[in-house]
C-alpha cells in the first residue's frame, strides 16, 4: 500500500508553491554548483596545478644552485608572475562552460522549469565560480606569503596587494568566461575560446598597440599585469623606450614598454567584470532550450 504524506505541497496550501527568496535561492545554487566543482574534480585538478607550480617555483632555484631573494617583495614577485596563468586556467575550468553546458548537456531542465529567475541562476553560478577561484588564489598566495616569511624573515604587504589585484582580475576573467559561455553553442568551443582569448588574443592586441606606441590600457590582460608589477618596489611607471630585436643594427625597431597605472587598471578590470556579466545575463536570459 502506497502511503501519501499529508502535506499537499511545501506550503501546506493546495494552490501555488512558494519559492524561497532570491537570495536564499542564490545560496542553494552556489552550494550545489560548488559541490559539482568538487565532484567533477575540477577544483581538485586546479589545486593540483597550484601545488605543482608552488613546488616548481620553490624547489627549482636551490636545485639549480641559485639562492632565494632576500627581500620579501622580491621573493613574492616570482610567485605573482605566475598568478595570471593560474587565473586563466581557473576561468577556463570554472566559467568557460558554466552556462553553455546547461544547454548542451540539457541540465538546464533541472533549473529552468523551477521558479528560479535567470539572474538568480547566473548569480549563483558566478558566485560559486568566484568561490572556487578565490580558494585557489588564497591557497596559492597564502603558501607563497608564508614561504616568503619563513625564508626572508619579513612579510610582503605588496604580496597581499597583489592577491587583491589577482582577485579582481580573476573576477573580470570569470565574467568574460561567463559571457563567452552564454553565447557559445558548445562547451569545448567556449572553454577553448576563453583560454585562447586570455592567453593569445588579448596578448596579441596588447603587442600590436604597443608596437604602434599606443598604450593598451583598455585590454584586461594588460591591466592584469599589475598583479606582478605591484610587488616591485618602486612600482614601474611611465613609458620606457628601448631597442627591439636586432640591437643597434640598421632597421632595428624601437619598442616602448608601458606599465599600467594602478587606478586605471582597477577601473578597467572592474569594468570588464561588470559589463561582461551584464551582457552574459542579457544573452542567458534570452536563450531557450531547443526541443
Amino acid at each position, binding site marked *: 500500500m502506497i502511503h501519501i504524506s499529508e502535506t499537499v505541497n511545501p506550503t501546506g496550501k493546495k494552490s501555488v508553491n512558494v519559492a*524561497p527568496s532570491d537570495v536564499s535561492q542564490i545560496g542553494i545554487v552556489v552550494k*550545489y554548483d560548488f559541490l559539482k566543482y568538487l565532484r567533477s574534480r575540477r577544483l581538485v585538478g586546479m589545486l593540483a596545478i597550484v601545488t605543482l607550480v608552488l613546488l616548481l617555483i620553490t624547489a627549482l632555484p636551490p636545485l639549480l644552485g641559485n639562492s632565494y631573494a632576500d627581500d620579501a617583495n622580491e621573493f613574492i614577485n616570482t610567485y605573482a608572475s605566475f598568478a595570471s596563468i593560474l587565473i586563466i586556467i581557473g576561468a577556463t575550468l570554472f566559467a568557460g562552460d558554466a552556462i553553455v553546458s546547461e544547454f548542451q548537456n540539457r541540465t538546464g531542465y533541472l*533549473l529552468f522549469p523551477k521558479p528560479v529567475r535567470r539572474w538568480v541562476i547566473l548569480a549563483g553560478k558566478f558566485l560559486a565560480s568566484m568561490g572556487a577561484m578565490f580558494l585557489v588564489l588564497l591557497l596559492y598566495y597564502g603558501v607563497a606569503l608564508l614561504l616568503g616569511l619563513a625564508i626572508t624573515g619579513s612579510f610582503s604587504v605588496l604580496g597581499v596587494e597583489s592577491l587583491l589585484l589577482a582577485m579582481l582580475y580573476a573576477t573580470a576573467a570569470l565574467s568574460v568566461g561567463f559571457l563567452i559561455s552564454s553565447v557559445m553553442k558548445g562547451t569545448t568551443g567556449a572553454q577553448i575560446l576563453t583560454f585562447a582569448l586570455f592567453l593569445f588574443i588579448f596578448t596579441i592586441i596588447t603587442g600590436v598597440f604597443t608596437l604602434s606606441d599606443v598604450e593598451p590600457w583598455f585590454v584586461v590582460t594588460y591591466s592584469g599585469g599589475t598583479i606582478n608589477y605591484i610587488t616591485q618596489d618602486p612600482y614601474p611607471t611611465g613609458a620606457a623606450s628601448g631597442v627591439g630585436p636586432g640591437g643597434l643594427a640598421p632597421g632595428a625597431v624601437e619598442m616602448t614598454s608601458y606599465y599600467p597605472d594602478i587606478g586605471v587598471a582597477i577601473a578597467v578590470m572592474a569594468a570588464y567584470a561588470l559589463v561582461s556579466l551584464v551582457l552574459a545575463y542579457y544573452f542567458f536570459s534570452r536563450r531557450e532550450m531547443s526541443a
Partner: protein
Amino acid sequence: MTNSIIEVKDLEHSFGDVKAVDKVSFTVEEGEIFSFLGPNGAGKSTTINVLTTQLPCQAGTARVCGFDVRTDRQSVKKSIGIVFQDEVLDRDMTVRETLEFHGRIYSMPRSVRLAREKELLELVELEQKVDVRTKHLSGGMKRRLEIARGLMTRPRVLFLDEPTIGLDPQTRLRIWDYIKSINEEGTTIFLTTHYMDEADRLSDRIEIIDHGKIIVSGTAESLKNTLGKDMIYLETEDDDKAVEIARAIPEVFQAKRTSKGLELILNTDGSKVMPTVLRSIEDVGIEILSVKMKKPSLDDVFVHYTGREIRDGPAENGLPKLRRR
C-alpha cells in the same frame, strides 16, 4: 460547473520550417488525468515544453493555473511539476541530493522534505541507492528518480512526458498507482504517452495528436465506442474482393483493407455476426486464412484515426487519409 486549469487556444510552434504544433486547442479540467496520445514527433513534447515555459509561445494562447505562459512564466513555474521525456539529472549529484536540491529550491520545510524523500525513494525502490551518484544508476533507476523528483512538491499540475519509458512492468504499475493516488488528492495530471495501455488505464480524458494537430478527443470508452461494439480482423486469399463482400453485410458498420488484411467494425455483438461474415466470404470461393475478434482498444482507435500503428514512422501509402477534427 467545470474549472479549467489548462486552457490552450490555437497554439502554434515551429522549428524553422517544421510546424511541430499547428493550431492546437484544448482544455484540461482541474483534478483530471488528461492524456496526450501520439507517436514520436507528433507534437506532444513541444506542447508540454510551451505549457511549462521551456519554449516560447509563438502563436495562440496558453494559460496554466490561470497564468499566461507568455507573460507570467514564474507563476506558471511555481504551480507545476515536470518529468521530462529525456534524462535530466546532474551526473555528479547523489540520489538524495537530487531530491534535496529540488525540495530546497521550492522551500519545502525540512521535516516535510525528508518525509517526502523517504516516501518517494521507497516508492521508486531507490532506498538502497540514496548515496549513489546518478551517473552510476541504471537507465531504469534514473527514470524512477526523475519521477520521484517530479512528485516531490506535489504541484497543482504535474506534467509527465512519457514517464514510464524504459521501466519494467512492475515499476510501471507502481508508478501508475502513485499517479492515481496523487491525482485523487487533487493534483491534475497532464500525461503524454505512446503507451496505449497507460493512457487507457489512467486517463479521464484523451486527446490524440498527430502531425501537430489534434485528431480526436474524448474518454477512453467514448473513443473506443466510436469503433462500434466489436472488431473482426480477417486475412483471406483475396482481401480486395472480401472487403467488398463484407461491406454488403448490414451489421458491418465499416470494412476496410489494412496492411495485414481486413478490419471490420461491427455495430452489434460480433459473435452473432461472425458466422454470417465467414459464410458470405467462403460462399464466393475465397479462402479465409485467419480470423480474430476483439473489443476495440485504444490501439484500434489510434490506427483508425491516424492510419498507422503508434510506433510506426510516417503513415503508410494507401492507408486511409487522416481524419482531422
